[in-house]
């Protein structure tokens, strides 16, 4: 079992290295297959681990495995250590399973791109990093995985590196994540100092006796989680990260990487439980993000950005759940969210691919007429998102909503926020659906989908700009909605979005909670009444949202009063980018300029340059001796003769 766990971890890394080392020695297709099969191998290995772990009794299900003692400093040991327990296996399955589907989808999506091998190497690297993160047995390996997913995200967002927008987005994501990494590192330092260990069971027993120290550690960890999961206040990088290819957005910025923050909180819940204020803060941040993202999604015109804000909002749900102590529920929602969010992204990818890179929904319309399968799957994904039974989202979301009941005034506040969020979810999700899919095909759509063959632009070109590459697709593949490698994963995810929720129906059967119980016992179990109330309210509000959306954007297109101020605020994403620009960026630039002028130029450049210049001047001075005149040289000889005579005589 341990070997299977290691194989699960290492297989994608091996694939990434292989693709990198072979370079142009293998064909692009072969690189794609190598990457995909390695992730499939990880999934298979994860299944093996699951099977083995199932056979054991719940108390036994914790197996650390250290391969190499990396650092030793007195009593402090850090090793290359993984932990096989219910939580890590759960995450391994999600990451490798959904990862496999998405990497398989990429075979078709990225077909024809010149740098396809680089893409698949990066994807394999990412899967490895994420697996390292979830399988880590101590904070150090977790941090390694954490940093590597940040790196993979940077590499993949900026994959089309000729586009300045992509590069800027990649840098933004990386820098904001670095902030989270810094706070996490500080938390680790405190842990090292007080517990002399970063291994997982040991580091958790920081205990209530340390007071403000525990709060510090929890805050540091929360900072990292907030940055990685794009929650308030570090959320601005996620929408920009949509500059990457759609499968990247699906895998990294929907299904897996952004959920790493939730995983962190669940894994280290012991620390958070000793710092209840911080845990409440996490829930509050989740609720705030939930609402904010839902509102902003209402005015977005880029199909991927709507789904990105939706992701932000749903992760807010998970943070809420984890913040309230409903760990299994949060993890369950992570699972179902992975299914339907990946589905939404991949289906959107089908549309984008068919429309030659167009992502602006105002130019789309009536796509459903020409891409019926995509329409159905997108609809399934949207329904799952809103939480309509019997689709997946219903079962997972409502448990979280229920956990906020009966928790005092703060819980009631969160409850209200969550319900409002559900209404917004219905509204923006179906706004998107109605704008893009039903009705008469718009002229743009007609032009692209009704022709038999056409050139494909690079995705992300908002409109047709000059930087397009032609892909070599077969003509007949476009009479349909996409190649098999693209439609098959979408169909699989659609099925999962329908049945995935049936894994746990809180009052009646809860295998997920049972599975995760040894690792993360929830702080409070909602009663059946609370569950029923929450479910009903959520369902009704979701339906209300859908209804309003139908009225506004459906066949009737009711006119709605416009509120210009609100519109502007939402379009500027609550002015966070501008705020950060003024508060952080400009002062930093000013400070840098100050240092440049005040210190760098006079001292550093002056000293180094000054030394060089003084040597040059010395050389120029010495150069004057070389007059080229024989007589000068002769004079020099005569003069030295005169001087030397005196010297010799004096010495004797």
């Amino acid at each position, binding site marked *: 079992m341990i070997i299977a766990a290691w194989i699960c971890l290492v297989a994608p890394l091996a694939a990434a290295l292989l693709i990198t080392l072979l370079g142009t020695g293998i064909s692009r297709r072969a690189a794609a297959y190598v990457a995909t099969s390695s992730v499939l191998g990880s999934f298979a290995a994860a299944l093996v681990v699951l099977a083995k772990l199932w056979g054991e009794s719940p108390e036994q299900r914790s197996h650390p495995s250290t391969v190499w003692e990396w650092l030793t400093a007195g009593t402090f040991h850090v090793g290359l250590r993984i932990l096989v327990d219910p939580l890590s296996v759960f995450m391994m399955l999600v990451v490798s399973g959904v990862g496999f589907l998405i990497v398989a989808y990429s075979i078709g999506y990225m077909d024809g791109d010149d740098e396809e091998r680089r893409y698949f190497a990066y994807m394999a690297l990412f899967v490895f990093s994420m697996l390292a993160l979830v399988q880590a047995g101590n904070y150090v390996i977790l941090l390694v995985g954490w940093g590597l997913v940040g790196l993979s995200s940077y590499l993949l967002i900026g994959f089309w590196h000729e586009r300045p927008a992509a590069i800027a987005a990649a840098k933004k994501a990386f820098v904001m994540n670095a902030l989270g990494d810094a706070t996490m590192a500080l938390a680790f330092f405190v842990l090292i100092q007080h517990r002399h260990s970063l291994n997982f069971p040991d580091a958790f027993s920081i205990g209530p006796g340390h007071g403000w120290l525990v709060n510090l550690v929890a805050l540091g960890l929360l900072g990292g989680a907030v940055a990685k999961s794009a929650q308030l206040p570090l959320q601005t990088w996620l929408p920009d990260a949509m500059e990457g290819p759609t499968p990247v957005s699906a895998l990294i910025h929907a299904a897996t990487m952004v959920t790493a923050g939730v995983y962190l909180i669940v894994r280290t819940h012991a620390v958070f439980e000793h710092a209840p204020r911080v845990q409440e803060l996490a829930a509050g941040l989740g609720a705030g993000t939930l609402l904010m993202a839902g509102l902003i999604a209402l005015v977005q015109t880029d199909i991927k950005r709507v789904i990105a804000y939706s992701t932000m909002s749903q992760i807010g749900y998970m943070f809420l759940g984890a913040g309230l102590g409903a760990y299994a529920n949060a993890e369950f929602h992570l699972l179902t969210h992975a299914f339907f969010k990946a589905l939404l992204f991949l289906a959107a990818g089908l549309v984008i691919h068919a429309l030659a890179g167009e992502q602006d929904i105002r130019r789309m319309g009536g796509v459903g007429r020409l891409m019926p399968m995509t329409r159905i799957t997108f609809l399934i994904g949207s329904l799952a998102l809103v939480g309509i039974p019997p689709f997946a989202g219903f079962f997972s979301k409502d448990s979280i909503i229920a956990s906020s009941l009966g928790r005092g005034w703060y819980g009631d506040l969160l409850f209200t926020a969550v319900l409002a969020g559900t209404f917004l979810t219905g509204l923006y999700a179906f706004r998107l659906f109605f704008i893009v899919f039903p009705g008469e095909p718009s002229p743009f759509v007609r032009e692209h989908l009704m022709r038999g063959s056409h050139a494909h632009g690079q995705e992300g070109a908002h409109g047709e700009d000059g930087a397009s590459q032609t892909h070599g697709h077969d003509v007949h593949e476009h009479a349909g909605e996409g190649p098999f490698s693209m439609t098959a994963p979408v169909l699989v995810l659609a099925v999962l979005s329908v049945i995935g929720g049936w894994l746990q129906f809180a009052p009646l059967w809860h295998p997920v909670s049972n599975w995760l119980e040894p690792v993360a016992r929830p702080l409070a179990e909602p009663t059946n009444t609370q569950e029923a109330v929450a479910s009903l309210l959520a369902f009704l509000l979701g339906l209300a949202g859908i209804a309003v959306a139908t009225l506004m954007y459906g066949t009737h297109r009711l006119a709605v009063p416009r509120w210009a101020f609100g519109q502007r605020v939402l379009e500027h994403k609550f002015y966070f980018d501008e705020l950060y620009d003024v508060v952080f960026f400009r002062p930093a630039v000013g400070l840098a300029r100050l240092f440049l002028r005040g210190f760098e130029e006079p001292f550093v450049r002056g000293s180094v340059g000054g030394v060089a210049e003084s040597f040059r001047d010395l050389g120029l001075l010495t150069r004057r001796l070389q007059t080229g005149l024989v007589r000068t040289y002769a004079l020099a000889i005569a*003069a030295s003769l005169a001087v030397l005579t005196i010297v010799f005589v004096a010495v004797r």
Partner: protein
Amino acid sequence: MGNVVVWAVWVVAAFSCIASGIAVVSFTNPFYSALALIGNLASLAVLYLLLSAEFVAAAQVLVYAGAVMVMFLFVTAYLGGRADAPWAGGPSWQAVGAVTAAAAILVEVIVVIGLKAGGRLSHEASIDSGFGSPHRIGRLFLTNHLLAFEITSVVLLVAAVGAVILGAHSRASHPLEDAR
């Protein structure tokens, strides 16, 4: 009585030596300078005779005045007017430095010799009649100072070869060279 003659001869020779030396350095026309040098060489030969270096004196007249100066005069004649050069020029500190250096050397030499070697310079050694004769010189060249002899002959050979090359080379690269 012979003493006075010796002194008289010495004075004349020394004076002409110094005068012709100054003349060599001062004349603008190189032809005159060369002629002055011949005078210098002749006076030197007289001085050598006074110092019982007969062979050297003869060699001085034959080699120096006879061969070297002839060469000089040939070249001066070949160059004609081109050999005339302004007296001096260039950086002014050059002239000042030159005079200072030369004067310093002169003074130093005299002072040094006067101070250091004054005592030892008073007693002349006695010499025999064969001192300075070709016989004596020849024997020394072939016994004690054979190496010097051989090396000097090599130097002369090298110089001769060098001169031929210098002369031939310029002729090869400028086939239409004429006197002007």
